[in-house]
């Protein structure tokens, strides 16, 4: 029988979910099909999006704690003028590690971790599109993080800033292997981010529940789609830039060598072409969190859904057009700068519209002041200050005074902590019951919210004053008598308060694992699909793939939830739907757990780390990587001919 005829075979008689096979019997068989293999190897080879998402978020929070501790050390050093708590070289290492860890190892991965965990649940499917690619993405991210922090422990941490401008990071002034480790870490993390982004994009476009057309997708899923596309277009820029830097430092190419007609600004263009979209890659998922939380806690849908979605898309596109506002002081032609001033100003319009829609939703609904909504309100108060200081530094004459001063440090902490970490803490509180089956404590939640909100203002508002009083960025100490003593002391105290507040939040997370109230499947009475499954969701997410006919499925579902059936039970299978209107299209076998993504990461790690020392490592190291990838993609032996493979 040729494959052609086999393609038209009628469906074989295999156990399938449906009216005849439903309820606990079905769930027990599905749980067995979708479970991980036993033991430590099984744990390593898990491809369940919930495992990978949880690992991403927990690893990112650990890196947040580590980088937060470094921030406290920096604040202690800066608490009084001419302080000698830590020396200059050590301080430069610490601020580089703080910035690099926060941007590459915490902010982007935690957002992608939440997206990997939530997207399949919110669009009603059983797994991410390329499960093994997701597992490889997490292991590569972990390898990149370990490389950087092992280097920090071994006293060869990079000390060139999180943006590594050559010639300081170049072969002559970037002494030893510090800058190579930074550049190799960037290669790791952006391979991880790209892999996750490709998987998320395919999941959202092809695996939405039947009936969930693009106009009925939850806004967080829209934010995930826009962020993933931004990752796909911006990360290659830093990949190319760091590879060119590595080749400058290893084999003596002249990309950034001004004496041989290379140019230090080539790096800045390539880096910030990635750099600015990256801060929106961190911010847009946070707007997705805010939209979900505002909708649930106002007890109504988001006002003017199309405006919010178009704002997301507009922010995503505009983000690629304003990277030169990081380079206003580099002496480029002034007429070019005025274009980038206008572009930087215009990017605040879509965000302004989103804020209007959130406030209108609160206005129309009856807001319930629980911890997630408190974080959203804290977000709006804090982020708008950051947004407005952003408008201020978009103007060239103002930026020439404020660039690379503590005013900028205040600005980006307002938009990153205020704009992304507050919604993240709200989102963790909001989805914690879904992930663990327990509620986080409300009182401890409120205490840590108020501490982090007020501590944040105390820590970062004085930095505006320090910046105007002439304190440049990345200085390990400052002289007395310049009016910097009070702002820096206040900032140091505030940062301690924030540290304690984050500690309280973590305690709340750990204690509630066992001590928290048991959570019902939909504790907040939320509208979206992920609250249709139990808390925590089973391995296969949905026994039957739900059908969606509005933007708020659970609120409009009545007492019966319409579903489709007919997917196989003893094989991992999920439903593919068309891109625009999500009409059922194909049954797609989902990949089995496999150890090979982990081994592929080990091989890639050996290749990358050894290529810091010799260019031949890239060629020799590629062999094990090819072997691992082949084994990864090699299809498992077909089930005994009980059932023709295609049906």
């Amino acid at each position, binding site marked *: 029988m040729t494959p052609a005829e086999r393609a038209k075979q009628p469906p074989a008689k295999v156990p399938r979910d449906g009216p005849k096979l439903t309820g606990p019997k079905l769930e027990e068989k599905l749980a067995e099909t979708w479970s991980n293999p036993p033991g430590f190897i099984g744990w390593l080879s898990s491809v369940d999006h919930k495992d990978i998402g949880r690992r991403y978020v927990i690893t990112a929070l650990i890196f947040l704690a580590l980088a937060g501790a470094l921030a406290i050390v920096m604040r202690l050093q800066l608490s009084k003028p001419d302080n000698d708590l830590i020396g200059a*070289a050590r301080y430069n290492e610490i601020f580089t590690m703080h910035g690099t860890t926060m941007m590459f190892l915490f902010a982007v991965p935690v957002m992608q971790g939440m997206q990997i965990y939530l997207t399949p649940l919110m669009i009603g499917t059983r797994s991410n599109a390329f499960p093994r690619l997701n597992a490889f993405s997490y292991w590569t991210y972990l390898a990149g993080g370990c490389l950087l922090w092992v280097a920090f422990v071994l006293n060869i941490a990079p000390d060139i800033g999180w943006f590594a401008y050559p010639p300081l990071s170049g072969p002559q*002034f970037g002494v030893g292997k510090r800058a190579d480790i930074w550049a190799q870490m960037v290669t790791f993390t952006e391979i991880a981010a790209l892999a996750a982004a490709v998987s998320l994009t395919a999941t959202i476009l092809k695996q939405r529940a039947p009936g969930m057309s693009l106009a009925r997708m939850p806004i967080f899923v829209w934010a995930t789609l826009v962020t993933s596309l931004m990752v796909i277009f911006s990360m290659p820029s830093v990949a190319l830039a760091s590879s060119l830097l590595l080749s400058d430092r290893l084999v003596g190419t002249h990309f950034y060598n001004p004496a041989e007609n290379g140019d230090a600004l080539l790096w800045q263009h390539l880096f910030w072409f990635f750099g600015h979209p990256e801060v929106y890659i961190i911010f847009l998922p946070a707007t997705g969190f805010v939209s979900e939380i505002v909708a649930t806690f106002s007890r109504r849908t988001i006002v003017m859904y199309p405006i919010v979605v178009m704002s997301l898309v507009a922010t995503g596109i505009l983000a690629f057009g304003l990277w030169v506002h990081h380079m206003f*002081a580099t002496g480029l032609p002034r007429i070019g700068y005025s274009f980038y001033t206008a572009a930087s100003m215009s990017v605040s319009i879509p965000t302004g519209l989103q804020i209007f829609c959130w406030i209108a939703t609160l206005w129309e609904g009856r807001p319930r002041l629980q911890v997630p909504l408190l974080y959203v309100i804290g977000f709006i108060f804090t982020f708008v200050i950051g947004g407005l200081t952003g408008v201020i530094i978009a103007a060239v004459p103002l930026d020439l005074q404020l660039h690379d001063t503590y005013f900028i440090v205040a600005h980006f902490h307002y938009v990153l902590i205020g704009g992304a970490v507050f919604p993240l803490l709200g989102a963790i509180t909001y989805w914690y019951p879904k992930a663990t089956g327990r509620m986080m404590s409300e009182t401890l939640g409120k205490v840590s919210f108020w501490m982090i909100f007020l501590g944040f203002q105390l820590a970062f508002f004085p930095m505006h004053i320090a910046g105007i009083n*002439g304190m440049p960025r990345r200085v390990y100490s400052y002289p007395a008598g310049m009016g910097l003593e009070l702002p820096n002391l206040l900032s140091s105290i505030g940062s301690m308060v924030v540290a304690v507040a984050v500690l309280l939040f973590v305690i709340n997370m750990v204690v509630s694992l066992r001590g928290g109230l048991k959570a019902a499947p939909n504790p907040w009475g939320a509208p979206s699909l992920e609250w249709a499954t139990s808390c925590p969701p089973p391995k296969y997410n949905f026994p039957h793939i739900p059908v969606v006919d509005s933007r708020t499925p659970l609120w409009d579902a009545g007492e019966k939830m319409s579903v489709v059936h007919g997917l196989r039970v003893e094989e991992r299978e999920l439903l593919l739907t068309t891109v625009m209107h999500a009409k059922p299209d194909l049954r797609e076998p989902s990949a089995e757990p496999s150890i090979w993504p982990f081994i592929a990461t080990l091989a890639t790690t050996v290749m990358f780390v050894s290529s810091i020392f010799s260019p031949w490592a890239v060629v020799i190291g590629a062999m094990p990587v090819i072997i691992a990838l082949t084994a990864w993609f090699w299809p498992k032996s077909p089930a005994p001919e009980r059932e023709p493979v295609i049906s």
Partner: protein
Amino acid sequence: MQRGGAYLSLCVTSCAGVQNAFGGQGAEDANFVRLFAVFMVVCTVMYLIVSAALVIAVWRRRQATRTIEDRKHHETSAATRPALIVWTVLIAVGLVGLTIASFFTDRSNAANGSKPRLSLTVTANQWWWDVEYNSPDASKIVRTANEIHLPVGVPAQVTLKSNDVIHSFWIPNLAGKQDLIPGRVTDAQLLPRKTGLFRGQCAEFCGVQHAQMALDVTVESKADFDRWYAAQLQPGRPPANPLQLAGYRYVTTRECSSCHNISGTPAGGHVAPDLTHFASRRSIAAGALPMNRGNLYGWVADPQSQKPGNHMPTVGLAANDLHAIVAYLEALK
């Protein structure tokens, strides 16, 4: 508007310091303070609108809401759309206004710097500033380090170069910062309006001692500037007593002469700051230490403890050599 900007700057910072963006002593910085005031007014108004809307939205208790509880969670009140249009227009008008204000300030800054009557070249090195007053007559070229003297009211064109990594030339009281990039030549315009002693600092991370790479800026009357300029043209003062002579001999024959230059003596190294009129400066080692005898002793004896990682080695001087060198250096007014 002029008084508003000044009042705003006073109430925001306790006092306008020597390195303060709200000082307003330079033409460009005065423009900055005015434009900053305009931006602060517009931004504060927008912030109050958002905060008020948020507070009212959260705290108003009214019955007829459109929520899931009363099955109206999809409906939106009619007033929302016009409110959105008004809000969008408000943002757009605000931003266009601010952008135009920014462009006019740009033009004013460019106009201030268009007819310079003084030309300097500042070359940044890892962790000090090499300053050179250009002049068509080669004998009138003054070379100094880590300090700039400017006549008040005279627009100065500063050509910026770098010998190693990217630095940033920033004197907040006078003007915005401009980067010094190896392989490129950029420029900055300074137009001081008020006399005074100011301090500039490198604002782009440039290595281990980025924090201690400052320069002293003195804006003085034209007469004082000419007097200073004439003094700078003179070669280094010869030693006046035996101790200074011993110091002279050490400095001009031993390690110091390999890197430093003192005009009129055999010491001719140009890879370190020029010491011809060292004692006339206000600070040592690019603003790291104020200029006094104690700091001079500390710096010459062991520069690595004051500014660890900088390129001046600890020579390990015997005590009498140290006394002689300090005596000689103090005489180089």
